[in-house]
């Protein structure tokens, strides 16, 4: 099955555009794409006519050019007819937004669509989905543009069984500065399923990390998914709902009682080098980190701070997440000391965390980060940046970024969240140093690099 027309269409036809209902999903989809995205968009309605001074085409054969992607937002009962028309006119792929299939027990109708598509090797996303959002390319989400918060174009492909989770997560990704290569809501996944998208995005040059929100797999589908994910070149992150043991079915054995669904899911995913995010915080941190770094770490963290308290909290959090904070060797400490400003040489603590104190300057941060970036004693650096100290300038993040760019060792930063510090934040993000407004978040970013064997 060729998924290219789904994700890189040049032309798109929206089926079901209404002349009466301006809020109809098809109208919203047509409006947000037509003349707003670099995709040729056509509106279809069997009745024909004109819509917003554009022709309404009665069927695919009436459209003057070949259609790569059909977006079908008609009533469920009409979908079969539209699909037959797609196949007849050699349309490349379809997103079926319409609801009213297996999710309400209408299995027969869905099965007919599935077999039609599989027989013709015709890729369908959906039904009962929001479909595909590709920043700067096109958008089949039937939610008005002005209502959505959209992330920038980036290298994360996020695939969600739930449309609601996709849209909500898009807002959160945008807030965290995580860019998307694609956001896909797969709904009932009648034809194209997680495993097909895994294969597609593993080869997609604009994607570096794949993340999935999974509600459940069909029989044995999980087995095939983890085997395929392990064979992928790119890191895979998953988040699963349904963690609570549903329906207390009395288990007949100890093994069955201990091996609940979520436990099995989590253990098997981790066995196959897939990073399991337990909630949206972990999902965001893992995705941000993995979309910036390609280096796997053992987890020996060098911490640089101006606050002893933050240093201790960071050590605790690292330990909790299976990361080490090794004491620096005498040689490393002796290399650091002469490069510090004389005023802090007697008060700084150089063990690890390296506590430069509130009297430190940018140049002290630069010196320590430079040495740690080249020392084999640590394989990742955590910067705890408290921008309150008088000696710390707004240039600090750009200066540290340059070191990261030169040395390549994974570096993450904690920076308190406030509009006031935005310039520091941007200095980090410009050179791909992920930043978190919480110490735990920054530690999770490092944990992702330790957990995911394929960075």
């Amino acid at each position: 099955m060729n998924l290219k027309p789904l994700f890189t269409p040049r032309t798109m036809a929206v089926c079901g555009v209404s002349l009466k209902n301006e809020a109809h999903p098809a109208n919203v989809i047509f409006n947000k794409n037509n003349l707003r995205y670099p995709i040729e968009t056509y509106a279809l309605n069997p009745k024909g006519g004109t819509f917003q001074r554009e022709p309404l085409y009665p069927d695919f054969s009436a459209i003057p050019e070949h259609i790569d992607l059909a977006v079908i937002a008609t009533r469920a009962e009409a979908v079969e007819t539209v699909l037959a028309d797609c196949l007849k006119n050699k349309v490349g792929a379809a997103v079926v937004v319409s609801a009213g299939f297996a999710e309400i027990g209408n299995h027969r109708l869905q099965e007919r669509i599935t077999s039609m598509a599989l027989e013709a090797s015709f890729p369908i996303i959906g039904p009962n989905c929001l479909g595909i959002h590709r920043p700067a390319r096109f958008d089949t989400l039937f939610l008005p543009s002005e209502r959505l918060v959209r992330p920038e174009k980036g290298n994360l492909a996020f695939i969600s069984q739930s449309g609601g989770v996709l849209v909500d997560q898009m807002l959160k990704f945008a807030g965290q500065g995580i860019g998307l290569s694609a956001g896909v809501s797969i709904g009932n996944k009648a034809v194209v399923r997680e495993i097909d998208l895994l294969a597609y995005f593993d080869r997609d040059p604009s994607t570096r990390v794949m993340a999935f929100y999974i509600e459940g797999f069909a029989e044995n589908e999980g087995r095939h998914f983890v085997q395929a994910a392990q064979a992928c070149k790119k890191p895979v992150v998953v988040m699963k709902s349904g963690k609570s043991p549903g329906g207390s079915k009395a288990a007949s054995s100890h093994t069955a009682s201990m091996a609940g669904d979520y436990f099995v899911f989590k253990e098997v995913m981790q066995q196959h080098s897939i990073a399991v995010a337990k909630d949206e915080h972990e999902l965001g941190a893992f995705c941000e980190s993995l979309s910036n770094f390609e280096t796997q770490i053992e987890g020996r963290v060098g911490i640089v701070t101006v606050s002893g308290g933050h240093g201790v909290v960071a050590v605790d959090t690292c330990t909790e997440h299976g990361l080490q904070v090794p004491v620096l060797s005498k040689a490393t400490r002796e290399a650091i000391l002469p490069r510090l400003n004389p005023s802090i040489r007697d008060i700084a603590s150089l063990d690890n965390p390296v506590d430069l104190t509130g009297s430190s300057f940018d140049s002290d941060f630069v010196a320590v980060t430079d040495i740690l970036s080249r020392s084999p004693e640590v394989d990742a650096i955590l910067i705890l940046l408290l921008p309150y100290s008088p000696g710390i300038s707004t240039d600090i993040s750009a200066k540290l970024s340059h070191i990261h760019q030169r040395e390549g060792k994974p570096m993450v930063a904690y920076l308190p969240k406030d509009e006031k510090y935005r310039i520091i934040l941007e200095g980090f993000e410009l050179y791909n140093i992920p930043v978190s407004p919480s110490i735990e978040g920054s530690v999770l970013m490092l944990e992702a690099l330790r957990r995911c064997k394929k960075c």
Partner: protein
Amino acid sequence: MLNAQGKKIMAQGKSRGWIMEPEAKTLLRIFNFAVPAFLWTGKLQEAEAFAAEQGFPLAMKIVSSTIVHKSEAGGVVLGIDGLEGLREHFERFRAFEGFEGVLLEEMVRGSAEVIIGSKTDLQFGPVVLLGIGGTGVEIYNDAVLRMAPLTSADARSMIESLKGKALLTGFRGSTGINIAYLQQMLIRFSNLVMELDDIESIDLNPVICSSERAVIADARFILQSE
């Protein structure tokens, strides 16, 4: 490979929904897993002859097609140390519902007990579980799980990932168990669960581990209902 005897046990188990312990042990023995020396009998003289040959202490368990959970039913006695006890418990077990004899076994010694289990998961197929075992298995709830079949790296990481791994590797001067043996056993067990059809879940609990080997002291096979 499953021989004729093994196939028969599986077929009988299928109609009952589970496999009784002596048959499970026979099945495990076919696949070269270590089980205690045992005798399944309904005759007291045979039990006494086994005791004379094997020596005390012995364990005695009820064999009944209606009792899946033997301990809960009062159908397990450990450490029987003489003929008097043997006779007393034999007579007591005879009155159990669905009595099909008793299982008489040597008492196996070891320094740690683990549970090795498997389950056929709907989404992932056969999976293998390893946990700190014994009667408190669900209280400790210290278990790890991998999809079968296991690689040697999987088996190694399973033992490594247990919170209570020091109970196995040894602590405060105590000698650890034979880790290499346990790893091999996990791999062989994962191959077994890949080969057998119709398994819903298996408990090998406890598996008694020593510095030499690991012996399956109790086994329960639950089969998928038709």
